[in-house]
């Protein structure tokens, strides 16, 4: 392939700009697109073959700024500087031009070739916003192309432009700051010329004045003298402006964006209140908003369960006699039994994934693409603050109701490490669909539905208390909620299906290996005949403290694999699903409480491990197991009194 036919482009932009839609359209690869900001964190790459050109596309994390507040922002910035892509495609939301232009200005400071994609021009038109493209192009000094990425409109023009301009020397338009700042930048640029750094000199000068931690460190290593000069200049600037120099620069950038917007955008005043605004008013209402939220989430939960139980029963019947078939065909040797447990683990995973997780994701993404999830964060922010995290954490809780694995993964949307960890810990206590199977299948069916619902309320209270405690224990300042409020928009079916498929795939890939390995290990222990020893070893806890039959020791070990196995194995052991033969009502409640809160399932543990290290994962397991056993034992004693 000739070198001139290869083009590297990267996509950059703030969250909610539709960057992922552009990526999907260009590469045909699947990716998350969402309404909550800053969700894409993984590196996504793809290739497009177009008019004889090979175009490599990289999707950078959606971020708000190129100042290093977060890892994602650092990743994006470093990538652009170090890899010199042929083009940075800056995707921005036409309906929020001003806010997005601040980011564009920062990109231009990096002196990389930028093509600006004005996305969502259809929504802008609806809102009565007209943007003077030619003027915007002239003012910014870069190509500007209007697009509607969700429909693919305008995107081939973007690529055509990249091909057309490839190799042509582009001059980097400079958007000067105020006089004093420019003077400081020139002075620093002079000094920086002596130091060889792989970054544009002007950009380093700006970042030094912005007190960018990474850049200051870098320059200090090469030439500490320059930092002294920076300090002196910063002081000068602060005396003139009465503000910290870093804020003066941000302010000027923001005002420049504002100025450009005023020059290029006309908004027709329309008296009519849009449907989105009206919906927004109702769904974020002080009273009605909460009622609607309970209805929507309750409805979603019931729909998932109704569908899940039906499909799970159907699948159960379908694969019910596979074990018998395996035993007669392959045999009942040690190896064959282990093989079967591996297969059974995968089958069981699919029995959770398709009946429960799949519809759950579909509904979740409908709500997300519609714009409702951001409203939930808004409504729940206050309550979440009491647990030391903010409103966005609620999203992870809701996802956790389906399955703790994606629930924990979604904690990445929280800004600080502290918030991520607290949210993840709390998510592991959210009763997932497998736990719900136990709660409803045991307590709901044999003790009473009110008791089952009571256990959910109990879980909520416990999560709240744990949140309060961990917000005190985990060091660091709580972060306040800053979140763009998206307009309500019609969800695209294709987007929802792609997102669902993607999340389902992630769930299966993360969970499958762990579930198979541990399934085989436990089966091996079972075949080795160590189970009775284990259950008698555990009996001081299970029998004496919790008042449960000794067999539950083994059940709880299997439950680590997947929680609903506790119920499945109990049925297998009893030879019947009539659990009231073996357990009293009190024992059922105690067993359900232990199952809800003791160590998270292996798949969740593996996510905790991956995201927060083995020490923290182990800590969570130990504390939650001890807590659950303690709590259930106390509950038993309280019930003994009545």
């Amino acid at each position, binding site marked *: 392939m000739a070198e001139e036919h290869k083009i590297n482009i990267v996509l950059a932009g703030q969250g909610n700009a539709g960057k992922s839609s552009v990526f999907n359209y260009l590469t045909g690869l699947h990716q998350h697109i969402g309404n909550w900001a800053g969700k894409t964190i993984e590196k996504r790459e793809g290739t497009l073959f177009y008019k004889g050109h090979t175009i490599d596309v990289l999707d950078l994390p959606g971020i*708000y700024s190129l100042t290093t507040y977060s890892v994602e922002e650092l990743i994006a910035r470093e990538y652009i500087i170090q890899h010199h892509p042929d083009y940075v495609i800056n995707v921005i939301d036409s309906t929020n031009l*001003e*806010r997005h232009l601040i980011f564009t200005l920062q990109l231009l400071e990096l002196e990389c070739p930028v093509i600006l994609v004005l996305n969502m021009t259809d929504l802008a038109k609806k809102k009565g916003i007209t943007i003077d493209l030619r003027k915007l192009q002239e003012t910014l000094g870069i190509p500007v192309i209007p697009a509607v990425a969700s429909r693919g409109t305008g995107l081939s023009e973007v690529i055509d432009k990249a091909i057309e301009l490839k190799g042509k020397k582009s001059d980097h338009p400079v958007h000067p700051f105020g006089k004093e700042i420019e003077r400081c930048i020139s002075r620093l640029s002079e000094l920086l010329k002596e130091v060889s750094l792989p970054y544009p000199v002007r950009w380093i000068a700006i970042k030094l004045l912005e007190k960018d931690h990474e850049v200051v460190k870098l320059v200090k290593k090469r030439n500490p003298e320059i930092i002294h000069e920076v300090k002196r200049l910063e002081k000068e600037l602060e005396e003139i402006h009465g503000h910290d120099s870093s804020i003066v620069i941000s302010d000027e950038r923001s005002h420049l964006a504002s100025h450009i917007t005023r020059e290029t955008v006309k908004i027709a005043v329309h008296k009519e209140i849009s449907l989105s605004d009206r919906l927004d008013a109702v769904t974020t209402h002080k009273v009605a908003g909460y009622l609607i939220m309970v209805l929507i989430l309750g409805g979603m939960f019931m729909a998932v369960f109704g569908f899940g139980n039906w499909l799970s029963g159907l699948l159960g019947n379908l694969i019910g006699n596979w074990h018998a078939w395996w035993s007669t065909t392959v045999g009942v040797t040690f190896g064959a039994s282990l093989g079967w447990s591996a297969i059974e683990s995968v089958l069981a995973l699919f029995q959770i994934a398709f009946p429960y997780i799949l519809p759950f994701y579909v509904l979740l993404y409908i709500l997300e693409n519609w714009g409702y999830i951001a409203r939930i964060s808004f409504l729940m922010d206050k309550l979440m603050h009491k647990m030391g995290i903010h409103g966005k954490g609620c999203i992870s809780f809701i996802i956790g109701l389906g399955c703790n694995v994606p629930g924990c993964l979604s904690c990445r949307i929280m800004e600080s490490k502290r918030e991520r960890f607290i949210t993840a810990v709390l998510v592991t206590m959210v009763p997932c669909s497998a736990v719900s199977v136990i709660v409803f299948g045991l307590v709901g069916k044999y003790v009473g539905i009110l008791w089952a619902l009571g256990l959910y309320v109990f879980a909520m209270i416990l999560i709240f208390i744990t949140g309060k405690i961990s917000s005190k224990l985990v060091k660091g300042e709580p972060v306040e909620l*800053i979140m763009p409020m998206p307009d309500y928009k019609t969800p695209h079916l294709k987007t929802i299906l792609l997102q669902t498929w993607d999340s389902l795939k992630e769930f299966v890939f993360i969970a499958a290996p762990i579930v198979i390995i541990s399934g085989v290990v436990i089966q091996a222990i079972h075949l080795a005949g160590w189970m009775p020893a284990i259950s008698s070893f555990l009996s001081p806890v299970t029998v004496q403290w919790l008042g449960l039959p000794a067999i539950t020791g083994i059940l709880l070990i299997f439950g680590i694999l997947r929680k609903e196995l506790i119920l499945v194995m109990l049925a297998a052991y009893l030879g019947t699903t009539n659990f009231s033969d073996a357990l009293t009502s009190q024992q059922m409640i105690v067993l359900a409480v232990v199952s809800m809160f003791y160590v998270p399932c292996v798949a969740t543990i593996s996510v905790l491990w991956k995201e927060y290290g083995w020490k923290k994962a182990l800590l969570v397991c130990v504390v939650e197991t001890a807590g659950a056993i303690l709590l259930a034992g106390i509950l038993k004693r309280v019930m003994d009194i009545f």
Partner: protein
Amino acid sequence: MNNQVSLTELEDGQTAVIITVNGGRQLIKRLADLGITSGTEIKIIRKTLLSGPVQVEVSGSRLVLGWGLADKIVVEGYG
């Protein structure tokens, strides 16, 4: 000219001009990168009960700010 007040003292639907943000450098910068900076107009779309988050409109964009944060934003000229 009205007195300077905290953003949280404004009522739903009121517009004011941002004077300053009482906070650390990081916070002020973060807000400035979102267009929330002195001299900019800010409109309260709605507040919530019991000091919950505040929905605002700045330069054509809707944002949600936690109460504690909104409280740090000083505005004047509201009406």
